[in-house]
């Protein structure tokens, strides 16, 4: 099979990229999705809050995904579901396997990587104790509850206050489970403020900051966990250990961009984001290979995923036409208080750019600043910045005269 643009993944990133590629002139666009349905992880995110920026509406996950899935089908984009990409060669040949295609190859003019991310597991945390049934990641629990219609347990402790953990605290409660507490290793939550309010405060679920689970107990099924307070280094404080009886431990302890396929193509990776190094057109270090969505950096709002993916899809179509002129490019850098900046490279193309970044700590009454050539080229006053909420700054193309450094300035 041959395709102009092949998109890996039909979540919000893949669908928006495919649509943008089609709308910008790519004729044969193929989306490859391993699930049976289009929509990606949004299909199991049945809560609302998606689309505030893009549509000015508060949609549920499936509704948001459906807007893009319907459009993709209407635009005659080929959607291969229950099809898995096994490998991508550096010459842009995808090897896929699926019930409808069997084992086959797709030669693509351009590729957009939109594989999303996976959850960090209990084993990866080196969580000590027994290994009973009843320890699962919040996303897997969400799949059981929202897609399969089954409850993973009744008496629940949640480790990690990332958004998935917060959402599942509310979800399990609404289904009659007793969520005893949410524990967070850091002194601040990793999720959106509105989720803390709407998922914990509104349901009287305690949030214990600077706490963690130090052991799991139970031979066949979880019977309880030992929790403890931790110091600034995350080391458990002796004497603060407490046994909490429960039958379920949900983990929301980190999302990791899925990049096995990217690594297989020798795409240059960013060790901090866990995703590929991309430029302002979302192109990776391999020409003709673009990336977007959670595979590049873990996003909080799907609206920004859509915007990023549209840039990637448009650029993929332009790549085919060789319409993108070779332009000089500059690096972005994470300065004081910043953990990472995406995109890692900026192309001088006359267009204004948006820099996305996360801070490395909680900063109150601060200003986020972008500098280039020693001059401040953008700044934004913020009452609070936390690592759990992605930040952005817009910069003008003509202001980019050298590396662009993003930093935080405290009052």
């Amino acid at each position, binding site marked *: 099979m041959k395709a102009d643009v092949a998109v890996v993944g039909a979540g919000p990133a893949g669908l928006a990229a495919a649509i943008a590629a089609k709308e910008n002139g790519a004729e044969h666009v193929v989306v490859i999705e391993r699930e049976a349905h289009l929509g990606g992880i949004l299909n199991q995110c049945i809560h609302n809050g998606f689309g505030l920026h893009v549509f000015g509406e508060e949609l549920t996950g499936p509704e948001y995904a459906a807007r893009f899935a319907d459009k993709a089908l209407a635009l005659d984009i080929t959607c291969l579901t229950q099809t898995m990409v096994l490998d991508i060669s550096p010459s842009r040949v995808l090897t896929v396997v699926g019930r409808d295609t069997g084992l086959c190859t797709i030669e693509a003019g351009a590729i957009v990587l939109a594989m999303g991310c996976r959850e960090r597991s209990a084993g*990866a945390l080196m969580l*000590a104790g027994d290994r009973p*049934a009843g320890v699962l990641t919040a996303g*897997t629990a969400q799949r059981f509850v929202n897609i399969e219609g089954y409850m993973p347990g009744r008496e629940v402790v949640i480790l990690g206050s990332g958004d998935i953990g917060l959402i599942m605290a509310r979800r399990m409660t609404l289904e009659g489970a007793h969520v005893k507490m949410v524990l967070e290793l850091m002194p601040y939550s990793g999720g959106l403020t509105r989720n803390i309010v709407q998922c914990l405060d509104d349901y009287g679920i305690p949030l214990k900051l600077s706490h963690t689970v130090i052991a799991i107990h139970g031979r066949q099924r979880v019977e309880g966990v030992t929790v403890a307070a931790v110091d600034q280094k995350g080391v458990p404080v002796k004497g603060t250990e407490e046994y909490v009886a429960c039958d379920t431990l949900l983990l929301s302890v980190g999302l990791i961009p899925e990049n096995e396929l990217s690594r297989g193509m020798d795409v240059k990776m960013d060790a901090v984001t866990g995703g590929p190094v991309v430029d302002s057109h979302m192109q990776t270090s391999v020409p003709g290979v673009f990336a977007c969505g959670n595979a590049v950096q873990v996003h909080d709002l799907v609206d920004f995923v859509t915007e990023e993916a549209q840039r990637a899809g448009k650029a993929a179509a332009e790549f085919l036409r060789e319409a993108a002129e070779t332009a000089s490019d500059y690096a972005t850098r994470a300065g004081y208080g910043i953990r990472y900046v995406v995109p890692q490279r900026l192309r001088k193309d006359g267009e204004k750019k948006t820099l996305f970044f996360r801070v490395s700590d909680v900063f109150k009454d601060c200003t986020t600043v972008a500098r280039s050539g020693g001059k401040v080229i953008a700044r934004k006053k913020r009452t609070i910045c936390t690592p759990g909420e992605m930040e952005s700054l817009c910069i003008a193309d003509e202001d980019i005269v050298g590396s662009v450094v993003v930093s935080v300035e405290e009052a």
Partner: protein
Amino acid sequence: MSRTRFSWCGFFYCGKGKRLMIYDVAVIGAGISGAMIARELSQLNVRLCVIEAAGDAAAGATRANSGIVHAGYDALPGSMKARMNVRGNALMEKAAAELHVPYDNCGSLVAAFDDEEEKSIDELLNRGKENGVPVVKTSGAEVRKREPQLSDNIRCALWAPTAGIVSPFELALAAMENAAANGADVFFDSRVTAISKKDDVFSITAGANSVQARFVVNAAGVYADEISRLAGGDAFTINARRGEYVLFDKSHSVRTNCVIFGAPSEKGKGVLFSPTAHGNMIAGPTAEFTGKEDTATTREGLEAVLNGVRRYAPGIDRRSVITVFAGLRAMSDRHDFIIGESKTAPGFVNVAGIESPGLTAAPAIAEYVTQTLINLGINGMKKKDATRIRKPIEVFAHATPERQCELIAQDTRYANVICRCEHVTEAEIVQSIHRPCGARTVDGVKLRTSTGFGRCHGGFCMPRVMDILARELGQDLSDITKSGKGSWILSGRTKEAVE
């Protein structure tokens, strides 16, 4: 949900009521020892059954050890351990090939940093020579040539070319499958609580079953002492010595080609760092006495493992850890294997205290126990149609593209990838359920197909594996367990708990 199901191979779930057949041999325990013994016995014209307390084979130490096939320089010369280790090492390659389980004869190094450790290497070299094991002393420079990622501070090492690695639970499961295919009955979820004898026949109460047999083999791991006591057999004590392990992702930046041991010293035996048969790197174990049900890992133990390995492999990265676990060694108070007919209980054969080198010794122990039973009077004739060969399992991910197309043409379920990290297909998972002594739990599928062994460690595939198990076994999704009775995964349907 209990059910009695008879499959063509005579495999029973927790059956109810008395079994009328009197077996020639009942093997208690389906760990590596019991499994390999059962496999050997199943080649003969004997009525054979295996009785296992857990929901599947390889449930104890067999699924929680380093998978090393030891060369045999460590065991004390003249001991049963030494004899079984050396013989087992010699038999392992053929046994693995017959059972179609990958075996890698990668060799092992014992690394020494200082005078004290070099002395203990010399001691091991002497022991090795006495046991008839090929061992050679090598310099630090030679070590780094063979293993460039190891510490510059390694002064010298012992090199043992006959050591290797194998997946211990894959070997045990393959042996059980072979035994079941040859006609052995298997009783799972059947903990032995009483053994009596009348007219040369043992009566064993095991879970809901009552099993009768002329001979009994006690391969019950950490509980072998209690089982022996129940039968009026030899009095010995088994202490559980826990070992904790850390497993690294296949992409971990630090890898070795062979098994690396730290030299034994005053500080202890030293942790090992080794490739596994699946392509991961494993580090461990610790050694602490604990209760017979205590397979919990500890923060201190896991840190001790990492610190121990860092000494000779300084670059290890804890961010590449994908799982941690612990196993219980069955240490006998006689400090050696206890293998043989019990003096106080004729017909009752102990296979006790099988700690390291138990995995290596397993083929030799099976050979020895089978001969013991033949000497005691079981039928030593080969059973018609019995085979030593376990049908090979075709792994889609390892096949050539041409072969992958053929497989898909035979069965479209090969085109449905379930485990995204390891590329395990629906066809392989379905087969793992329906083979003799097949999977009935999530862990059962995991151990037979590597589903859930990868980066996401079951996060994506567990719901799908459960769907397939429920469909193939005719059960509801909420009946599917992680590893047998008690390890329920789903408490019920949504909306049930809401008033």
